[in-house]
C-alpha cells in the first residue's frame, strides 16, 4: 500500500465501509479495472473491518450450545431428485449475477447475500417444511416458448396446505399480469395462488392451498387478472411425473 495515492485508499476504505457516493464508486471501478492489484488491498481492508469483533470482551459461550449445534447439524437436509439442493440454487444464482455485475466480491455484496440468507432463515415455517421427512419435490418443466429457459421445483408436504415454489429464469410479466400455480384435483384445476417474477427471474414463494392437495399434477399459467378461479391464459410450465 505504498505507491497508491491517499485518495485511492480513501475510496477503498469507503468501499469496504459501504459509504461511497455513486461518483466515487464509478471512480473506484475505473481504477480497479486499470489496477487489478487494488482488489488485494480492498480485501485487506474488508478483513480489517471484519476483525473488529476480536476486540470485544470475551464472554463464556453457553456450554450446552456446542452439543446443540452438532446435533442440529445431523438433521438431514432435503435434496431434490437432481441431487442439487433447492434453496442454494436460487440464492447462489442471485449471488452469481450480482458478483458479475460488481466484477468482484465485496463486503456489501456479502452483506446482501447474508441478508437474503437471513430473510430465508427468518421464514422458519418454510425451513421447517423443508426439513420434514415426508416433503417431496415436484419438478416443473417449461411447456411454452415464452418461458423456454424456466426451470424449478415445487416443494409439497403431504397433509400440509403450504407449498414452496422455487423457479429460475422466469421472465418478468407486464403490469397486471400474474403467474398462477394450479393443482389438478379430480380433473379440475384448482388455484394455489399467484406470484410475479423479479428482474433476476428467480422466484421463491410460499403459497397456501385452499385445501390439502392429494394430487401432484401442477401447472403454471400466465393470467391477466389477480382473481382467477379457472385458468384462461397460456400454460407455461407443468409437473413432470
Amino acid at each position: 500500500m505504498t505507491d497508491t495515492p491517499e485518495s485511492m485508499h480513501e475510496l477503498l476504505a469507503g468501499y469496504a465501509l459501504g459509504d461511497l457516493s455513486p461518483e466515487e464508486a464509478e471512480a473506484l471501478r475505473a481504477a480497479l479495472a486499470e489496477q487489478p492489484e487494488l482488489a488485494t488491498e480492498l480485501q485487506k481492508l474488508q478483513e480489517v473491518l471484519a476483525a473488529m469483533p476480536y476486540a470485544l470482551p470475551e464472554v463464556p459461550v453457553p456450554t450446552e450450545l456446542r452439543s446443540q449445534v452438532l446435533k442440529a447439524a445431523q438433521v438431514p437436509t432435503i435434496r431434490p431428485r437432481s441431487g442439487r439442493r433447492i434453496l442454494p440454487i436460487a440464492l447462489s444464482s442471485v449471488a452469481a449475477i450480482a458478483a458479475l455485475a460488481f466484477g468482484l466480491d465485496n463486503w456489501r455484496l456479502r452483506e446482501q447475500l447474508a441478508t437474503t440468507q437471513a430473510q430465508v432463515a427468518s421464514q422458519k415455517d418454510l425451513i421447517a417444511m423443508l426439513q420434514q421427512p415426508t416433503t417431496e419435490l415436484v419438478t416443473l418443466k417449461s411447456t411454452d416458448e415464452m418461458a423456454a429457459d424456466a426451470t424449478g421445483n415445487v416443494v409439497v408436504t403431504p397433509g400440509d396446505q403450504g407449498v414452496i415454489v422455487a423457479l429460475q429464469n422466469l421472465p418478468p410479466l407486464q403490469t397486471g399480469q400474474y403467474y398462477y400455480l394450479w393443482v389438478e384435483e379430480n380433473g379440475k384445476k384448482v388455484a394455489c395462488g399467484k406470484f410475479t417474477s423479479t428482474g433476476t427471474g428467480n422466484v421463491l414463494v410460499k403459497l397456501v392451498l385452499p385445501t390439502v392437495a392429494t394430487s401432484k399434477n401442477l401447472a403454471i399459467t400466465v393470467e391477466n387478472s389477480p382473481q382467477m378461479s379457472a385458468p384462461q391464459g397460456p400454460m407455461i410450465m407443468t409437473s413432470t411425473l
Partner: protein
Amino acid sequence: MDDDENRRSTLTDSELVAAMRTGDAAALATLYDRYSSLVYRLALRILSDAEEAADLTQDVFLALWRGNRYEANRGSLSSFLTTLTRSRAIDRLRSRSSKLRFLQRWSQLMTTQSSSNPFEVASLEQRSEFVREALTQLPDKQRQVLELAYYDGLSQSEIATQLEAPLGTVKSWSRQGLLNLRKQLQSLLD
C-alpha cells in the same frame, strides 16, 4: 482430547472446511471450538440477549455446515463468520426494532465477564489483544464512528445526526479510522 481431535486441532481452517464438506461433523466441531467464542461475543454485542445470541451462533455454524458459500480465496474464515454474524444480527435487531431493547443493550454491555476456557482460545486471545491494542491507537472519533457503523449498523448520515457532525467529516473519520486500523494490523494481515 483423543488422537483424532489432536490431529484436527492442528489443521488449518481451509483444511477443516474441506473436511466438513465431505460430511465430517468432527471438522465442524473443531471449527466451532475455534470460533464460537468470536461469533457469540459479536452476536451478544449486537443483540444484547444471551438466548438470541446463542440462537444466532447456532444459525451461523449451521449455515457454515450446510452452505457452500465460504471461499478461502475471498478472505479468511474468521472474516466470513464475523460478516455473516453481523449481518444476521443487525437484521434481527431491525426486525424487532424495539426502543426498549435498544436501551437494554447498553446496560447489559456493562456486565460482560471474562472467559476461562484455557486451551483452544490461546490464539483467539492473542488476536483479540492485538485488535484491542490497535483500536486504542485510533483517535477517539475514528474509533467511535467505526463502532457505530459496525455494531449498530448505523448509516453515515445517522451517525452524523447522532454525533452532530457534518456528513463529510463523519465519512472522513470512518475511512481514516479503517485505514489507521489497517496500518496497525498490517503485520497480522500481510
